[in-house]
């Protein structure tokens, strides 16, 4: 039996691997399915060794068809299983979009609460790894806009370990975003206990301005806050963790203190997650805002060739620039 990993520092990829292993041990109905998840252990090795230990019936190399992966997961869920589907890269979730939006998200409602869809859809997302087209996208807003789905993103090994287990245990379907550029970044130890799945977390307290981020941009926000601190500006950084539902109480509480908010994400700006947060914050904290909610994000273009991604993606300079702007109001 796999134990809590204890003090051992883990990479995010390894933390996910151990979280998956724990979930499979805890519940024999948990299955992993996707392209290359078996012997290869996935292209990022997140499922490394699981097929060896749990067998081909529980860690399933599927045919190369995303609609088939999600659609058969729906059938497995009807039969009582809890499938964890791996989508190899963000840009390849779209062939499965119909099954996700019209079946996974709607079956529980269609059945008036009689059929649950405890399906977890894991998606390595985001850029910064020098990849080719379709391998660096951030499609979270599509899923957040879809009623019936919940959407989360982990940003560090400990959350990765716990959140993947919580997602698998959730009776609602969850789209689980993994910041691929952090898979093998810093190692850290797993916390002793899980934090509530759909709760945001203040990861750096501050009083001058709130920076909200999730997934790969949390590290960027923290670095920006460290840089700003050198200039005597205290930024509060919140790791959103759950994109849908949003934990507005945590966000509003912070904004009421700081009066200023910047949302950071890699996805294109327009109609993205930042828009919803801005809309809600101005609804719910209208009189607290001393400046408009600003967004630092990818631009409204196709994701650029990788040689341009560092400029295109939000970076410390652009975040600090937005901080200046916000404080200038």
């Amino acid at each position, binding site marked *: 039996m796999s134990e809590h990993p204890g003090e051992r520092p883990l990479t995010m990829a390894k933390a996910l691997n151990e979280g998956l292993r724990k979930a499979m041990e805890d519940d024999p109905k948990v*299955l992993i399915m996707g392209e290359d998840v078996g012997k290869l252990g996935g292209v990022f090795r997140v499922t490394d060794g699981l097929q060896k230990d749990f067998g081909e*019936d*529980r860690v*399933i190399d*599927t*045919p190369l*068809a995303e*609609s*088939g992966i*999600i*659609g*058969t*997961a*729906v*059938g*497995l*869920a*009807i*039969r*009582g*299983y809890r499938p964890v589907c791996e989508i190899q890269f963000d840009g390849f979730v779209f*062939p499965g979009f*119909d*099954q996700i939006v*019209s*079946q996974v998200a*709607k079956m*529980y*409602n*269609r*059945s*008036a*609460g*009689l*059929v*649950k869809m405890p399906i977890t859809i894991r998606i390595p997302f985001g850029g910064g790894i020098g990849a080719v087209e379709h391998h660096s996208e951030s499609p979270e807003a599509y899923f957040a806009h879809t*009623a*019936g789905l*919940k959407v989360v993103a982990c940003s560090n090994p400990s959350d990765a370990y716990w959140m993947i287990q919580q997602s698998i245990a*959730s*009776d*609602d379907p969850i789209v689980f975003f993994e910041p691929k550029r952090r898979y093998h970044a810093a190692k850290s130890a797993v916390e002793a206990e899980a934090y509530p799945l*759909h709760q945001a977390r203040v990861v750096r307290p501050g009083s001058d301005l709130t920076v909200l981020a999730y997934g790969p941009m949390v590290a960027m926000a923290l670095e920006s806050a460290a840089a700003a601190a050198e200039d005597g500006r205290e930024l509060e950084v919140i790791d959103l963790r759950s994109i*849908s*539902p*949003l934990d*507005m109480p945590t966000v509003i509480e912070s904004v009421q203190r700081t009066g200023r908010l910047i949302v950071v994400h890699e996805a294109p700006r327009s109609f993205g997650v930042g828009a919803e947060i801005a809309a809600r914050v101005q609804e719910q904290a209208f009189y607290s805002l001393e400046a408009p909610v600003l967004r630092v994000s990818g631009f409204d273009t196709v994701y650029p060739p990788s040689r341009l991604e560092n400029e295109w993606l939000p970076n410390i300079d652009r975040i600090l620039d937005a901080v200046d702007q916000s404080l200038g109001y």
Partner: protein
Amino acid sequence: MTHQVPAVQPEPDMVQLLTPEGQRVEHPDYPLDITDEQIAALYRDLVLVRRIDAEAIALQRQGELGLWASLLGQEAAQVGAGRALKKHDMAFPTYREHGVAWCRGVDPLSLLGLFRGTNLGGFNPHDHNFNMYTIVIGAQTLHATGYAMGVVRDGAVGTGDPDRDTAVLAFFGDGASSQGDVNESFVFAAAGNLPVVFFCQNNQWAISEPVTTQSRVPLYKRASGFGFPGLRIDGNDVLASLAVTRKALDDARNAQGPMLIEAFTYRMNPHTTNDDTRRYRLDSEDETWKLKDPIARVKAYLAREAKIGAEFFTDLEQESKVLAEHIRAGCRALANPSPESAFEHTYVDMPDELREQRDEFAEFVTSIEEEVSA
């Protein structure tokens, strides 16, 4: 344009065990041991299913249903397939399998909510091992395939234990055969040698598109390219449908893998009550198919060959009337859901933000009511 689309290939042989004239015929691969009483029981299904359909159409005309997708002409395909299932087998319908629902023991009223607009399905697929209707064309074939993956993982195939071994039956139409999902379900089913039988009702039309828009070769042939058998049956022959589906399900339960059955039949009514066939097909086509009516041939058989007494037919008429009344009264009694119920069941664990929307909405509804009554 000089480019010519070659003519569609001629109709292939199809399994038929009862001719349009009501003659039993034998088929070497599909012998069917069946008593006249059992044929009479199938006749009863056919008649009652047609009655359900007729009542639903009438209810739609009266404004009690928003829409209805008629199965007229497809009763034999559906009743044969439905009666071939064992209790613990699972069926995945489209939106037109009222006859299969009947055979599974689903109360016809359970089907009406969707068409009345009082729910979106709303019944438990496990109650009768019959999934809710699926409207997105082809999507359910993947669900059936995934369910069959679960059956295999449960060790419920090829054990030889008839109470344990389980098969899955996936319905779809001729139009659906073009969808990626249907073809992906063939891939998954074949690669996993899964206990799923694909049952395609080729009713010749996908709304206004004739089957030739989808394929110029018979649809049952699709299966062989994926590595499993396919077969065409006379879809208006309830005995052929029963015998062939039963055998296919048996094979599936015995770990022989998937099969595709193409039931060659005809959608005698418009696509739905919204549709207008005059825009795209000839009356003469309808007339030809009327001669192959799936019920008339069983009636002819029973009248001529079987010693089914007149009482059976009068009883059935009575039963049909009672059923009709059940449907009419039951349909009218299907209440509108409460507005607040729109907020239920999007999530198992309702997020706070949705709870707030619900509460605001409830408050708003109350305030409007107060205003109106004030």
